[in-house]
């Protein structure tokens, strides 16, 4: 009997010791963070990033920079001086600044739309772009009458649109794409394709889309009764039928996991960039009603945000 108690006590002590050892393993890791601006989404991602490390028992020592306030050159100089094991870039601006300027220091990035920006030996991260297939799948499930998908793009997004077109064709959809030079041309471009499309897919092209042209597009969608698929829940709120969103905090966590790998000694080159792993969607019921689409309650329940109820 006492032998057994002794054994239990011994086990308990070893457990305690082991626990203490993990505590000792909590060493400080320095990370430099560069925000592109003060946008709320960046902060959400940063929260997720932090959360991941805390959960995994890593104590982060952070030096934060924000390009909204800090001078880019000083940011570079300070990072070079600090020489952190990893630099975390939030947004395109931060990435563009850091790229090629911080030498060998690995850059981990998120909240960037264009996957092509994430190129270079020491760079990897998570993009903002939701895979076209996810969107097409949703369309297939919920907009069964859809046969032709409309696209308007400029030179900026030509490559992206080519990929999307391929995906669409793979899924059996016909693509009606129109290339224009500026947002002002959206009027005639829409006139041209409106009658031939069932659904319009927006692409993140700053050359075409700005408040007035978006307004025109959404209005036109209501008039001509085609479903506009927006770029984020803002568009749904403004009058798009449906938009797909990612969970920014989860993107943070996703990026953190990649960062962890790099900190543990993996080379960024070996880690390919990823798309957001968690996507949600938002619906505008008012628009749905206007353009004559019936949405089953199950789908409504599924939506993260519902407008025009």
């Amino acid at each position: 009997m006492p032998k057994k108690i002794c054994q239990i006590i011994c086990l308990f002590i070893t457990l305690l010791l082991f626990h203490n050892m993990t505590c000792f393993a909590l060493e400080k890791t320095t990370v430099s963070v560069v925000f592109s601006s003060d946008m709320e989404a960046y902060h959400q991602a940063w929260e997720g990033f932090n959360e991941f490390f805390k959960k995994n028992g890593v104590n982060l020592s952070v030096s934060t920079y924000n390009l909204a306030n800090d001078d880019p050159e000083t940011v570079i100089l300070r990072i070079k001086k600090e020489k952190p094991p990893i630099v975390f870039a939030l947004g395109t601006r931060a990435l563009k600044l850091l790229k090629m300027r911080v030498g060998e220091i690995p850059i981990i990035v998120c909240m960037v739309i264009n996957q092509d920006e994430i190129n270079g030996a020491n760079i990897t991260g998570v993009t903002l772009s939701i895979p076209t297939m996810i969107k097409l799948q949703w369309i297939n499930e919920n907009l069964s009458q859809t046969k032709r998908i409309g696209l308007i793009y400029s030179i900026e997004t030509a490559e992206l649109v080519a990929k999307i077109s391929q995906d669409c064709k793979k899924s059996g959809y016909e693509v009606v794409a129109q290339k224009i030079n500026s947002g002002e041309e959206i009027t005639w471009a829409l006139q041209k394709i409106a009658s031939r499309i069932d659904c319009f897919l927006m692409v993140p092209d700053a050359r075409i889309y700005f408040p007035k042209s978006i307004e025109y597009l959404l209005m036109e969608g209501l008039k001509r009764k085609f479903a506009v698929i927006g770029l984020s829940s803002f568009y749904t709120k403004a009058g798009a039928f449906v938009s797909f969103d990612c969970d920014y905090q989860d993107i943070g966590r996703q990026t953190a996991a990649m960062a962890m790998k790099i900190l543990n000694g993996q080379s960024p080159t070996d880690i390919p960039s990823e798309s957001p792993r968690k996507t949600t969607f938002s619906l505008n019921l008012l628009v749905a009603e206007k353009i004559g689409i019936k949405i089953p309650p199950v789908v409504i329940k599924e939506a993260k945000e519902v407008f025009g109820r």
Partner: protein
Amino acid sequence: MRINITHKIIFLFILLISTLSIIIGFFSFNYGKQALMIEFDDRAKALVKSLALNCEYPVLFDNKDMLSSIGANVLSLKDVIFCEIRNEKGQVLFKKGIKNKPYNHEYTAVIQTEKVNDVEEGLVLGNGQIRKFEKIGRIQLILSLDNIRDRLLSIQRALILIISLGIIVASMAITLLLRFVLGNPIDKLVTDTRIVSMGNLDYKIVMNTKDEIGSLAIAFNEMLNALKITQNKLIKTEKMTAVVQIVSEAAHEIRNPLMVISSGIYLLKKVICEENPIVPKTIKQIEDAVSRMSLFIEDLLHFSRPIELKMDKVKINEVIKVAISELSEGLFFGVDMKQELADNIPEILADSNRLKQVVVNLVKNAVEAMKEVVGKKLEVRSEKEGNFIKISVSDTGKGIPAEEIASVFDPFHTTKKKGMGLGLSICNRFVEAHGGRIEVESEVGKGTRFVVWLAGETIKEEEK
């Protein structure tokens, strides 16, 4: 034309009121004008700005239909006479209206649109605070000032009307007020003064106002009184001067015969025997009369100079008695003569000869006044009244008419054929030289009383 003081004051008041109203009118007009212009300007600016916002969409997408409907709408608004919308390349998208009216204001605004910032994820994440505006066109409005001018003109007209009316009413009120308060009394003062200046010194100005003009009237009346007194004195002095002239000449002529008479008497006294007692008595009387006469002549000669009194202790009753006794008894024929001389009369310091002369003159006048009267009564009294000694001579003669009474003491005032009119004048001088005065009371048909007042007290004090 004569401008009187009331007119001047009225003119000044009207000038003041007019200037004030014009200044106030000018300033309020300018203030109103400014307020109107500011309002106009604000409205126009707000209009052009909201128009620029409305034009964002049609200019951006080159929607000419929408632009022309917007333009037509704007042109239908009040004051808007011209509207032009251009895009950024300078192409005219809309143009309508008349540009070259004389009074107008031009307002322009930039048409712009919001563009997404260069950061692409902004499209997905929402723009955040970073906004970027791009100029896409320009709108030009021309607003006519005609309406404002019309309004200003009507305001101006109303102001002028109100101001003129105000000036007229105020002027009328002031004119009436001043005419009543100032004009009438002044006019009256002027006419009254004119009456006085025509020689009527007895005129009295009657003024009911108690202000400065009233005081002026009172002062004027006082001045008139003083003037009258001075004038009377002046007349007296003038008369006096004439008297002195005549009298001194006459006296000079009389003095020589008197010398002859007095030396004659001196001889007669020596030569005439004293058989008949009446003779020396008569001679004595003549001698006294002559000496009195020469004294009198001396006085006359010194008429212009102040009288030199030979002061001595005098018993007034004695003086009266001697005076009466020196008058010829024939004078008192048919006259009931009465003397009531008081015992308590003190001796005074006086010139007995002069006082005697006074009594003689008064008694003579009294008797002469009773010449044609039945029941001639003469009374000579002496009495003490307070500190004064009073000598009165009363008669029952014809009396002195009221209008003459003031001038009986004037030299050469006489009603008698053979009179010189000097008696009372000399009496007055003598009495006044003694520090006394003579009073007259008289009633026509009943009689006259002359009273000589002499100071008794002063002499007593001198005695001490």
